[in-house]
């Protein structure tokens, strides 16, 4: 194969640049075409090298200039890495030039020449193996860039450019000192010969190597000596920002990658250290940032910091280094370019004003893609890279590094998701929509698609990534493409798809997984049926709902921990989009996402610890973790608890569930929360189930569950919002489940699983019904409803059965869980937890009565006189679930016996004995069916007696009540619905102070204050920035010689 030598990139670019210079401004139109042609030529050259090197058609090739061999001449190396990096740079060059078409044309041929020279220099910087050559072209690049910065009009761009010149001037001076002294000490400027001849640099040579490396590190705008860089990001044309972030930073990073070898591995640790300071520091400082381009600048610096960490750890990462580095690099490169370009299209400075993006919904999709790629969500390459990075770091015992990296990532997620939240849900009424130029949107679209493609191709490259099941994701993608169809068709496709999938999947699952898969899939189908009630297109709903279900089923089917985590993150992303669809759910979506990401990071670390010392990634490694087992299991549990909303990690739930759409609330409450329970079950099985050595952990978990149950129920009592009430109730119910599981006995688990099924059934019923009622009456506030039993009797029946089941009153199914719990508690000896549970049960009656009374009973409001019964599409799933509750209530043994058999696998001791329909435990017995028959029988007898004695009961209307001789004036003043439990509140208000929320608010506030105070180092004065650079070098040197 005949390859075009990379030297032609330089030659052609320079030639064309001169030619264009000669042309001058005479041929404006053709000059731009020539520029594009030149950049395309560069791209073709590098891409053909990528192809040739990747397929093994050719070997890495050295290109010698001037006919001498190094060290007497400059040589270029074209290896696989170089070819990929140059390809990336050149692609961004083409796209960027296209994106900046208007600006480049307007500013004439000169700007185009400079643009071309910039990319030529970036290519050379990557390819060259000569230190001085690298210096020269770095300088050429920065001069070119300084020329391009000024393309943007205004003082800001000018002063930013000057600061940039000043800073890079000083930095390249430092670099030059380093280069000249390394030449002095090694007699060579060629990187390869320096490395081969001087494996360990000492003293003077070491100092000069340090200067070279620190200069490159500074070129990468390391925190905190990076004010000049931030200014450039903020002030320059968005296209320049994209080039800086995607192309320039990539090239400079590669330079660092090349030259770090000259110091051997002596500086690796410090590069990681600088990297982590950059990553954590700039992500933390970005918290207070409101200017979108500057925010992106902070984020870019953070990402480069992460890449420096990876570089520093290349000895530990071994052969994974390239994979991890490219994973992060490519995601960052594409996403950041896309975001910068987007910012040029949206044209809003303040991130709050990005709400205008929503006026063109496909831009939201683009923005979401970039942001989720940046914070490392699947299916983007950064997800796999981050996974591998954490696995390897934990495996090598660098836990504190993992913590720092994850903290930094967390901060990045905070501001990124917040920004995205503003875009989805912020106020946008007063902001003018933006124009879309096709030449601007095409590059953005290309990088967005490239992200997905990259993710798809990166996944199989990790050893365990091959097993990921992409079929559900294809389905999601298909639904996304079909999003223009009306609801009815999409809903049918979704339901059929899920049903088929469940049909094919369920034979392969064991009982445990089958239970959860059934909850996810059957529950999913039932809640989707409710979707028929919606009219129009319901744009964007089906892709995200199915994304969540795809994640859920991936969790169940996971054979490896990577698959599990992949599913977990997919589910998180899907549910986030679902939740944030609600009208007022911006802050709640954010907090949901942050707790989810925090939990996911805990999970990631835990899974990493499980993997430590093991070759395999199979789910089996959760059993008997040997590396820091307490921490590992603790982190796993914390990760899962963030999803079950245990006390302390619960503050996202009420808002998220309460403000979500009517059919989304049951999805995220009845179904999604069970994913956390599934995880806890897996962890507890991993801890050894009956023979656990970690009973302290289980004990703490049990207490947490009990207190969560109490707190959740207590908070539910004082809610005025029907859906929030149910949401708090979910917190409480999940507390029960956690307590049951934590008991680690047969009965405890039986009770826990009984609750899992029950909670799914009745919470789905309640949320669906209340959601449907809310759709009809148009408010969440219970005190604005009332008397709806007359208008919606079927909904009332559903809620009544739901609350009786929830409250655990016999004969309905909730009692099964209660009965099992008390037996388990006596068995286990957790008496106080049991008493707290019972008390929370008593409190539950209060909010349940409140729910049904204030909504359905009492006085019908005037404006609800004509409301219709809830939609038939809600009634179908509701009554299907009710049938489930009734079957479970009448024949509990049908459910409990198989459950018991399943649990006996892990807890063979203390099983329930079944004699016919009677369950016998050590402490008592319970005949579910007989009790139900007895109660129903006596109920009917009494009812018949009443009917016989009051044959002629006169039906009266709502104000036909005794009102002390008066008549009520209005339903609103007659309906006792607001602040109903005032007396209880007076007695128990200390327990309702939202301490947890205050704590998290305080944490947030402190972090933001730190960010606010720290970022004042960026005073805006160019001299200060130079001082930062000098100090950075001095401090780094002191740290290095001192450490």
């Amino acid at each position, binding site marked *: 194969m005949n390859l075009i030598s990379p030297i032609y990139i330089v030659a052609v670019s320079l030639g064309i640049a001169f030619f264009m210079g000669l042309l001058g401004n005479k041929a404006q139109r053709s000059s731009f075409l020539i520029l594009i042609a030149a950049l395309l030529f560069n791209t073709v050259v590098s891409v053909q090298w990528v192809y040739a090197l990747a397929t093994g058609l050719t070997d890495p090739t050295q290109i010698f200039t001037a006919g001498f061999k190094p060290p007497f001449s400059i040589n270029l190396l074209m290896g696989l890495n170089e070819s990929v990096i140059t390809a990336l740079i050149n692609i961004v060059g083409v796209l960027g030039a296209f994106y900046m078409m208007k600006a480049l044309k307007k500013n004439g041929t000169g700007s185009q020449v400079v643009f071309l020279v910039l990319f030529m220099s970036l290519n050379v910087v990557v390819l060259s193996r000569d230190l001085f050559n690298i210096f020269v072209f770095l300088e050429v690049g920065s001069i070119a860039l300084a020329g391009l910065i000024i393309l943007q009009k205004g003082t800001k761009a000018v002063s930013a450019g000057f600061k940039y010149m000043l800073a890079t001037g000083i930095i390249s001076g430092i670099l030059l000192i380093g280069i000249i002294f390394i030449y002095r000490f090694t007699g060579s400027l060629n990187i390869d010969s320096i490395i081969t001849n001087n494996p360990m640099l000492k003293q003077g040579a070491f100092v000069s190597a340090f200067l070279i490396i620190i200069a490159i590190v500074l070129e990468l705008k390391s925190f905190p000596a990076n004010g000049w860089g931030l200014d450039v990001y903020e002030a320059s044309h968005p296209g320049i920002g994209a080039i800086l972030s995607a192309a320039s930073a990539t090239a400079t990073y590669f330079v660092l990658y090349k030259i770090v070898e000259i110091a051997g591995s002596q500086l690796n640790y410090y590069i990681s250290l600088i990297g982590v300071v950059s990553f954590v520091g700039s992500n933390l400082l970005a918290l207070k940032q409101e200017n979108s381009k500057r925010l992106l600048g902070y984020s870019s610096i953070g990402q480069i910091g992460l890449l420096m960490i990876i570089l520093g750890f290349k000895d530990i990462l071994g052969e994974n280094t390239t994979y991890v580095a490219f994973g992060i690099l490519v995601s960052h490169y594409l996403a950041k370019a896309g975001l910068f370009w987007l910012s040029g299209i949206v044209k809003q400075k303040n991130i709050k004003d990005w709400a205008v993006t929503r006026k063109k919904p496909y831009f939201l999709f683009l923005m979401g893609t970039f942001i989720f790629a940046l914070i490392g969500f699947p299916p983007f390459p950064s997800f796999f890279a981050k996974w591998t990075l954490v696995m390897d770091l934990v495996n090598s015992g660098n836990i504190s590094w993992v913590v720092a990296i994850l903290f930094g990532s967390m901060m990045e997620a905070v501001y990124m998701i917040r920004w995205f939240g503003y875009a989805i849900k912020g106020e946008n009424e007063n902001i003018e929509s933006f124009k879309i130029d096709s030449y601007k949107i095409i590059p953005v679209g290309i990088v967005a698609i490239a992200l997905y493609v990259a993710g798809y191709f990166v996944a199989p490259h990790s050893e365990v990534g091959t097993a990921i099941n992409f079929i559900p994701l294809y389905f999601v993608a298909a639904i996304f493409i079909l999003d223009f169809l009306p609801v009815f068709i999409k809903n049918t496709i979704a339901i059929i798809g899920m049903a088929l999938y469940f049909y094919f999947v369920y034979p392969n699952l064991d009982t445990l997984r089958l239970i959860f898969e059934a909850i996810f899939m059957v529950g999913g189908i039932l809640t989707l049926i409710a979707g028929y009630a919606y009219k129009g297109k319901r744009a964007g709903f089906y892709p995200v709902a199915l994304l969540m279900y795809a994640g859920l089923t991936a969790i169940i089917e996971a054979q490896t921990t990577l698959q599990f985590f992949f599913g977990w993150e997919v589910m998180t992303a899907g549910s986030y989009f679902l939740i944030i669809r609600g009208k007022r759910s911006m802050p709640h979506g954010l907090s949901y996402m942050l707790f989810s990401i925090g939990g996911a990071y805990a999970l990631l670390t835990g899974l990493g610890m499980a993997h430590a010392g093991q070759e395999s990634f199979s789910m089996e490694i959760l059993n008997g973790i040997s590396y820091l087992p307490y921490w590992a299991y603790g982190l796993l549990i914390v990760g899962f608890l963030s999803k079950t909303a245990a006390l302390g990690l619960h503050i996202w739930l009420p808002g998220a569930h309460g403000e979500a759409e009517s059919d989304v609330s049951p999805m995220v409450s009845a179904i999604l929360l069970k994913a956390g329970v599934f995880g806890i079950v897996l962890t507890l099985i991993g801890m050894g189930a009956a023979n656990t050595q970690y009973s302290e952990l289980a004990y703490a978990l049990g207490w947490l569950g009990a207190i969560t149950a109490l707190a959740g129920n207590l908070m539910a009592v004082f809610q005025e919002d029907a859906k929030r009430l149910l949401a708090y109730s979910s917190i409480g119910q999940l507390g029960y489940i956690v307590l049951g599981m934590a008991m680690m006995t047969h009965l405890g688990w039986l009770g826990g699983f009984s609750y899992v099924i029950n909670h799914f059934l009745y919470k789905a019923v309640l949320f669906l019904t209340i959601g449907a009622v809310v759709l009809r009456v148009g408010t969440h506030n219970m005190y604005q409803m009332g008397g709806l039993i007359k208008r919606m009797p079927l909904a009332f029946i559903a809620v009544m059965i739901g609350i009786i089941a929830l409250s655990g009153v016999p004969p309905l199914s909730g009692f099964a869980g209660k009965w099992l719990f008390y037996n388990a508690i006596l068995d286990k000896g957790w008496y106080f937890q049991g008493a707290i549970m019972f008390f929370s049960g008593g409190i539950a009656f209060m909010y349940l009565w409140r729910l049904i009374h204030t909504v359905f009973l009492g006085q019908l409001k005037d404006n609800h006189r004509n409301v219709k019964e809830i939609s038939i599409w809600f009634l179908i799933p509701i009554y299907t679930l009710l049938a489930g509750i009734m079957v479970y209530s009448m024949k509990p043994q049908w459910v409990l016996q198989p459950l018991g058999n399943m649990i006996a696998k892990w807890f063979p001791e203390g099983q329930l004995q079944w004699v016919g329909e009677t369950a016998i435990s050590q402490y008592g017995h319970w005949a579910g069916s007989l009790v139900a028959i007895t109660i129903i029988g006596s109920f009917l007898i009494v009812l018949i007696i009443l009917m016989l004695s009051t044959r002629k009961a006169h039906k*009266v209307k709502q104000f036909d009540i*005794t009102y002390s001789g*008066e008549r009520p004036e209005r339903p609103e003043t007659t309906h006792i619905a607001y602040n109903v439990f005032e007396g209880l509140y007076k007695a128990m208000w200390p327990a309702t102070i939202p301490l947890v929320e205050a704590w998290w608010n305080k944490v947030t506030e402190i972090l933001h204050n730190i960010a606010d105070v720290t970022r004042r180092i960026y005073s805006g004065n160019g001299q200060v920035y130079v001082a930062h650079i000098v100090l950075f070098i001095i401090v780094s040197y002191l740290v290095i010689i001192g450490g």
Partner: protein
Amino acid sequence: MSEKDMNDKVNEMLQRSEANVKKAEKSFIHPEDEEREVVAPDGSIIKVNPIYDYFSGEKPKEEKPCSGIIEKFLNWARAESIWVLGFGTGCGSIEIPPLVTPRFDMFRFGVQMRPTPRQSNAFIISGYLSVKTLKRVIRTYEQMPSPKYILALGSCTINGGMYYDSYSTINRLDKYIPVDVYIAGCMPRPEALLAGFTKLKELIKEGKGEKANEYARNFDEYKANQKKIIKDWNMPDYNW
């Protein structure tokens, strides 16, 4: 705002208030009871008539007593279990509290107080009855389950007593609601009240405590009388 506009506005306001005064004089309808419009969640307008919409308002029917011995047995139970509504309508209500004291102790006769008309079967109209209270009495009386009994206390309920020419009290109670037992005096002492209870019990046991049916039978007549005197009628014809 120019002076002319101001004057126009003032005139308009004056006219409006005059119209309101006229309207009020005509119907005595409290503004709260006027017809109003509310907006349903789906945006449609619902007209609300506060006087009739909220109430069933169906006319009462005569309830036939059971036959023979059963009715006698039930009447005995009713007579021995008189639950009096705790509603003091006039000055005589001061005579009722002594009945629960050790000195008079009405409980031994099976008489006790009940706070809600739904659970009472006897109603003491204690003395003069203003028109304003009459409306409440009618409403309360109609809300009591049948069979129900009325004891009228003092001369005011018989012929108006010392308020015979008052503009604001009624003269004869049984023009408006049927009375079972009149207890004369101004005021009758608690002993007289106890005697009244004894008389009522006798009547009930004899099967003569059927005034509720009489009310139903002559409903239109009673209603006409009531409506003649109560100007601001803001309730349905029958309060269930």
